[in-house]
């Protein structure tokens, strides 16, 4: 029930509306946890819950950058392929130089460069984002398969592998990274001018341009961040799997989009939060983990993810329409 007559209070109401949306989703996550605790013996164990958190954080890294893109009203379909190419190039660098630091920088650099190319296509060449990034998907896919030539890279330094599979004070390292990036993402989106400009671009690109926001530069930034986050995710995958293969990111794009949409970010731009995406990643991971524990064949996972994507958009449209 936004008060249209008073724009200032309207802004506040919108924020609390966002909080209610996130609250519903946290409630859903809690209910799934409760159901799984009752239905399975193995769900409510420290090992499994840490496992869920680790999986959810991997998904969150990819989905958090994507959230910013979706907030501007765009989409990045290339993230899965971006993870694959970043992981393979970073893996090569680590093998050649033996330096994990260089590898991490390379992964994030490659991912960011790919994201920047996406941004250039969307802003300078004015290609619709979903089709530009879809083209990019196949370009990256081809290059990665050609580069790897069917080979798999194995064996990375033990110190590097800690990033993906290590523990600190009983919690997996990726969970700490998750907290850091969740905080950075939330502060950036909610508390900085640039973040607020991203919301403005998504809500009304024309009004954003007319009010002096450098739309093209902000979009370029958003796509670059999305790519760089995919690069970061590739590093954590690399460290966790201890191997790099060309098909590493193939099944990641749909879950990442699902996490963003379950998290309540509107496909039409301007509405949503990074924290919501974290909850979305948690919900999707819980569902997939639960299917696993209930010994549902893994073949069902893409089917369920597809249904969830559509349901999430549908629910979002229903609730927003009522709120508007």
């Amino acid at each position, binding site marked *: 029930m936004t008060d249209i007559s008073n724009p200032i209070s309207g802004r506040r109401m919108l924020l609390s509306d966002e909080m209610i949306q996130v609250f519903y989703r946290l409630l859903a996550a809690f209910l799934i946890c409760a159901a799984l605790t009752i239905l399975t013996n193995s769900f409510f164990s420290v090992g499994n819950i840490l496992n869920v958190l680790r999986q959810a954080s991997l998904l969150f890294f990819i989905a958090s950058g994507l959230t910013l893109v979706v907030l501007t009203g765009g*989409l990045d*379909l290339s993230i899965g392929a971006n993870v694959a190419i970043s992981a393979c190039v970073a893996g090569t660098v680590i093998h050649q130089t033996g330096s994990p630091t260089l590898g991490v920088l390379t992964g994030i650099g490659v991912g960011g460069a790919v994201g920047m190319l996406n941004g250039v*296509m969307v802003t300078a*060449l*004015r*290609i*619709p984002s*979903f*089709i*530009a990034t*879809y*083209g*990019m*998907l*196949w*370009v*990256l*896919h*081809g*290059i*990665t*398969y*050609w580069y790897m*030539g069917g080979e798999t890279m194995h064996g990375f330094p033990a110190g590097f592998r800690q990033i993906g599979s290590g523990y600190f004070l009983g919690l997996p390292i990726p969970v700490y990274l998750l907290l850091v990036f969740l905080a950075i993402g939330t502060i950036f989106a909610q508390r900085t001018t640039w973040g607020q400009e991203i919301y403005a671009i998504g809500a009304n690109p024309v009004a954003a341009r007319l009010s002096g926001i450098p739309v093209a530069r902000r979009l370029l930034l958003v796509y670059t961040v999305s790519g760089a986050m995919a690069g970061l995710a590739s590093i954590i995958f690399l460290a966790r799997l201890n191997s790099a293969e060309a098909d590493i990111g193939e099944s990641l794009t*749909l879950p990442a*989009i699902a996490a963003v*949409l379950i998290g309540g970010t509107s*496909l*039409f731009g301007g509405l949503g939060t990074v924290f919501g995406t974290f909850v979305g990643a948690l919900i999707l991971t819980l569902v997939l983990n639960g299917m696993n524990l209930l010994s549902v*064949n893994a*073949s*069902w*996972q*893409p*089917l*369920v*993810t*597809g*249904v969830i*994507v*559509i349901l999430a*958009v*549908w629910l979002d*449209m229903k609730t927003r329409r009522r709120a508007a």
Partner: protein
Amino acid sequence: MREQAMVLNTNPLQRIPGVAVMLVLLCVVFGLMTPGFLTVPNISNVLVQSTILLMLALPMTLIIMTEGLDLSMGAVLTLTSLIVAIVALATGSLLLGLLAALAVGIVFGTINGWLVAVVGIPPFVATLGTLGMAQGLSLIVSDGQSVVGMPAAVRGVYSGTLGGVPLPIVLGLGSYLAFHGLLYHTRFGTYIFALGGNREALKFAGISARRLLILVYALGGAMVGLAGLLMTARMNSGHPTAGLGLEFDAIAAVAVGGTSFERGNGWLLGTLLGVVAVGVLRNGLNLLALPSSIQVASVGLLVIAALFVDGLRSRS
């Protein structure tokens, strides 16, 4: 009104150069670089192999003209191909297999159309969702295994001839002519032009845009079912990942053929030439012994280039 719509919405003279010049250039380059390219068996091979793509690209043109997109085609093709194989294996009847595949294709197409037209989900996300569903169903019905041991009739669909012309080419040409007639010589076609170009006019003419959109996507599903038969016949088996990604080649063919993603105007002959161009590109790179990964990447670049040119055109 139909004449007007055609005049307003297609400008062949402006378009013929683009895709046709590209096709000729590709043929010349590959002809010079590889001795095996400009031979009758190879050209015939390219055309036969392009028919499956054509069957996806024709309805994709119509869908893109409505400012839509169908990312699920490749995954649904995989599913319908598996359905043909499974039903043909179980019943020994090719016709039953085809009917089952058509039914599955139409169901998916209708779901896509319903999600886009009635629920109002943006097409690329709605069809991304059904892509996941079809991919999952393919794994489930096949249990991740190939379906082999087809009756002889299945193979005959791909290797057979009709009056000396390979059967796939007959089916491909038949599909093209049917779509050409549908788009340019029926009311349905005129409405499709209106759907992309002028939705208001449809409303005044008392046409339900929703029903029309669902029909367009359902027609796409039916064509994917038919293409599933060819796919199974070509491989003489069903495979759970066979058609994945083929929607991208279809989108590439449509984009290269000069159909616009934003202005609701399409050109069916351009799509036909675009399909052949994509086929020639893949075949030529193949003859040059470049890995299929390079083919995939170059088709990706082709799409981005085509869209860039389209963007320039719309601005000028």
